[in-house]
């Protein structure tokens, strides 16, 4: 049992941190990530990737969160590429994965159909068989990265009844497919999302990802990987925000001394620091399980992490604005950007309450 980074993870961290520090808000950050090989993490070397597991993603994600980088790393690399690698045909892998690695294609993953965190059983988007393929109809709101994605992995029912785990399938839908309607917008942290609507979109049979009707466990996997990845990003944001707040406490002078000399602010900063460390511990735990195959164990670990880190993010986010005072309320100061990122984190992929409930549902035994 060893919590320290391997040598290659340390190198990865250094590279990602340097990239983010130098070019975190550059328009070509995605290409720079590709050039550094970051978009190949977890992808087989045969397809141009560099391999590696979730802990490698975690290192990159923490750097992205720490640098407030807006990207589609989670839907494209952590989730999309993983679904394609896990379930795709040889042809799908050979075509799509190299493009992802090269930064030439981004992917979104569209599962949820209401504004609430719900299990895959509730998916109602319909995929009817037609000659040579399928016809998709349904609506998916607030799909992360779907505003700019080239391909959206869409879940739909090819069979089975509402409420069941059977009959769910995944489709690789190019966003320029006729009939695919997207409405894109920024979410609170500046990342992009879109609502998508399909009313009888015709797809070829080759767009099916994985075995028809057996996508439920893939959808769970996508849910868990998204949540676990968000946790790592949030830890990066929390650490950076705590550093910023601590610096403020040491430099802001009121009543003739740095405000960090006031015990009440000291203790709050300590509590925020502890929250960061608790969050980091749980992010590691979630990341470690996110590669796992056992649905209940993985789901419990990820939901425990997402729930706990959501609470920690609230402690750090709200606390940092309070400790900053007025300056924390201004839009052109970074503390607010971190707070918004942590606010988005809490809402994305199920909030703390949702995951606490899911954890309890999966069993506290």
């Amino acid at each position, binding site marked *: 049992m060893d919590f320290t980074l391997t040598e290659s993870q340390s190198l990865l961290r250094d590279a990602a941190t340097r990239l983010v520090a130098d070019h975190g808000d550059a328009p070509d950050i995605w290409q720079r990530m590709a050039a550094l090989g970051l978009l190949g993490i977890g992808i087989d070397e045969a397809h141009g990737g560099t391999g590696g597991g979730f802990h490698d993603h975690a290192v990159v994600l923490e750097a992205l969160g720490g640098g407030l980088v807006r990207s589609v790393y989670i839907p494209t690399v952590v989730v999309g590429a993983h679904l394609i690698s896990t379930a795709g045909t040889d042809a799908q892998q050979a075509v799509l994965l190299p493009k992802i690695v090269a930064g030439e294609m981004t992917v979104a993953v569209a599962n949820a159909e*209401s504004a609430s965190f719900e299990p895959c059983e509730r998916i109602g988007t319909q995929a009817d068989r037609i000659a040579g393929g399928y016809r998709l109809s349904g609506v998916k709101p607030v799909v992360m990265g779907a505003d700019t994605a080239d391909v959206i992995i869409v879940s739909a029912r090819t069979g089975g009844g509402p409420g069941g785990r059977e009959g769910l399938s995944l489709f690789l839908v190019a966003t320029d497919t006729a009939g695919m309607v997207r409405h894109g917008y920024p979410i*609170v942290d500046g990342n992009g999302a879109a609502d998508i609507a399909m009313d009888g979109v015709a797809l070829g049979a080759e767009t099916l990802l994985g075995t028809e009707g057996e996508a439920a466990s893939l959808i769970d996997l996508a849910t868990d990987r998204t949540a676990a990845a968000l946790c790592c990003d949030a830890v990066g944001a929390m650490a950076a925000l705590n550093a910023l707040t601590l610096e403020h406490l040491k430099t802001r002078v*009121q009543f003739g001394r740095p405000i960090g000399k006031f015990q009440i602010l000291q203790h709050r900063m300590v509590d925020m620091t502890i929250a960061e460390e608790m969050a980091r511990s749980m992010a590691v735990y979630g990341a470690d399980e996110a590669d796992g195959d056992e649905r209940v164990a993985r789901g419990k670990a990820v939901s425990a992490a997402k729930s706990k880190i959501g609470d920690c993010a609230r402690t750090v986010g709200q606390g940092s*604005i309070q400790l900053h005072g007025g300056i924390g309320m*201004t839009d052109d100061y970074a503390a607010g950007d971190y*707070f918004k990122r942590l606010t988005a984190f809490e*809402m994305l992929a199920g909030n703390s309450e949702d995951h606490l409930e899911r954890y309890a549902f999966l069993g506290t035994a």
Partner: protein
Amino acid sequence: MDLSIPQELTDFAAEVRAFIRAELPDDLREKVIGRRFDILSADEKRFWQRKMVAKGWGAPAWPVAYGGTDWDVLKRHTFNEVVADEGAPMPVPFGQGMLAPILIEFGSEEQRQHFLPRILNLEYFFCQGFSEPGSGSDLASLKTKAMRDGDDWVVSGQKMWTSYAHQANMMFCLVRTDPEAERPQQGISMLLIPMDDPGITVRPVITLDGEHHTNEVFLDDVRIPGANLVGEVNKGWTYAKALLGYERTEVARIGLSKRLIKMVKEAAAKRTVNGVPLTETPAFRRKLASLEIELKAVEMLNLRMLSNVRRNLPGNEANMLKIKGSELQQDLTELMMEAQGTDALRFDRDAALDQNIDLFGDVDYRGDVTANYLATRVVTIFSGSNEIQHNILAKELLDL
């Protein structure tokens, strides 16, 4: 001990409610409800204020002689609660609630005659020049200086967090008039400054909600006639402290929280999770009940305070009400956000709302809840942060 509400008061509340419903345009109401913080234009604010003046309700807390009323604190509280609950614009606080009582208590008769009527009808739209970049909680360390030049004052410096300076045409401003005073509090005066002076530059400060509520104000050799000094020179700190004591009975903002909790219920009633209405979902239902009870507790504390004020009993309840009232507003805006699920992630408010309704028909959410959550973080910071409120209570009430 008699907690019953007199029929007269119930009738009065109904009268206020009926008046507002009859007179308040829908678009104003929607703006007030939607944005939490007053982002009405100056003209819209004047429009409504003059309606209220015409009704005799323009400045209820003022003496009748200046256009106020003879209502007791409980009646004023009832009035404010209905105004907030109905989504009517609250009066701009700076002139009416802060400066005017100072002028009434400490100003010259000439100042009262000149300023009060113009404050009442918002001809003078005041903003408050207190905070500075280096002087927030430690207000007494302010550096903006005013030098005597004949009968005039010449003012230079920088003010910060000057809410609505971009709408205001006047500012009451704390300035340092005696840098040599033994204690920093003793060298401060209060001046009334026209905002159209060429030496004044107002720079917008955009807050987390993306809105323009507040500003930096730069003063560069702004010349002010001596008649614009409030009260005596170097007594500004006394006035600033007195100012913070006025209308402390409304600090909990019960009416606003009542409106917020209604909005939460409406939003939650429209949403289902796993087929169960959000209002029946255990965790949400529990939080909602808990905040409703909290609101009741803050309200009862507020009413107890009003009862004491009427009997001139002492009390530090205002500091408690600031703490608990502001925390409650934050909890409610957070629950409102939770009630919207992932829809609350959207941040292009008006646009998203319209387009989504087109696209899906059945999407129904408020596009402003997250902005309001973000904006409401300020309520535990401004008007004496909650940490400062704790310090005051520790010292004044507990003698620690």
